[in-house]
């Protein structure tokens, strides 16, 4: 979960932390400027709404400021902030999504492979006509992939984002979401299956329009 290093001549994390601990007000601004970009990207990925994402980022920085004494010197500041913003964004997502939790099962099922009672697939899956390397090389396709990830129904999409994009492991994801590791695995697998199906259609990968 590497945080890209800031491009401007900002102070490094060690001096930011030292400044924060000694009460230097410039250190907080330095921390915000150095990390606001990556944190906002994470919040946008989870919340898919600029206003909510900005609120989450602000809350995350304030949480970090208040709980600075809980930051361990040996951890990376970016990693610590990443965890905080994920937590805040998930809290907001939970509130927002809890109202429409019903019916989601139906939605994801429509994208999962269907089988006959004898365990045989109802569809004859075809080989994709374009390889991953070629797909990744096209800016247009990369955009389609990101937009299609957004179409994976909740709560599966969140697990996919945390595991496969934010690169949290199963245990961390389970802890943040307050669910069992086994449930994380089930949701991740279903999210990937749904996305496989959606991408195949969006990108016309079997040559059948």
């Amino acid at each position, binding site marked *: 979960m590497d945080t890209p290093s800031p491009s401007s001549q900002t102070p490094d994390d060690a001096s930011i932390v030292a400044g924060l601990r000694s009460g230097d007000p410039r250190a907080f601004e330095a921390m915000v400027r150095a990390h606001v970009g*990556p944190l906002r990207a994470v919040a946008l*990925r989870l919340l898919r709404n600029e206003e909510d994402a900005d609120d989450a980022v602000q809350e995350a920085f304030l949480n970090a400021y208040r709980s600075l004494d809980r930051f361990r010197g040996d951890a990376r500041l970016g990693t610590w902030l990443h965890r905080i913003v994920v937590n805040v964004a998930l809290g907001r997502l939970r509130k927002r999504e809890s109202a429409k939790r019903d019916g989601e099962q139906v939605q994801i099922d429509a994208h999962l*492979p269907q089988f*006959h009672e004898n365990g045989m697939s109802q569809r004859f899956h075809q080989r994709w006509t374009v390889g991953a390397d070629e797909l990744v090389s096209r800016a247009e396709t990369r955009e389609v992939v990101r937009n299609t990830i957004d179409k994976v129904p909740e709560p599966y999409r969140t697990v996919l984002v945390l595991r*496969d994009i934010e690169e949290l492991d199963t245990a961390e994801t389970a802890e943040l979401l307050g669910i069992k590791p086994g449930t994380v695995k089930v949701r991740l697998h279903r999210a990937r299956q749904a996305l496989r199906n959606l991408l195949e259609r969006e990108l016309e990968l079997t040559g059948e329009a």
Partner: protein
Amino acid sequence: MSEHDHPKGDGHPSCGHDYGLKMKVHGLTCQEISQFMMDYLDSSLDDGAKDEFERHVGVCPPCLHYLDGYKDTVELVRRCGKVELDAEAKKVHGEKHGPPPEGLIMAILAAKQAIDGQA
């Protein structure tokens, strides 16, 4: 493997097609291949199950194609998911995912000052 409580393919025989495949190829059904796919890719199947998995996929083209597409999907997410690492996307959608607005930074700094004032 109750973790993988997969949706039952409640078997709509009316819309199903028979592609003439044997329902069980070397002990695992296509549905089981689909269920165990993530564990297979995580190398968390035991040796026996792994062998069965590979034998099935070796003789069942739909499962092989499904597996390949699944692997490509995971790779696409990993390589395309982060818009901030995508220079070309920034050019095209600079407005949407450009640098964080200065207004946000100012709002954060103001909120922090308010906290300091309360203390």
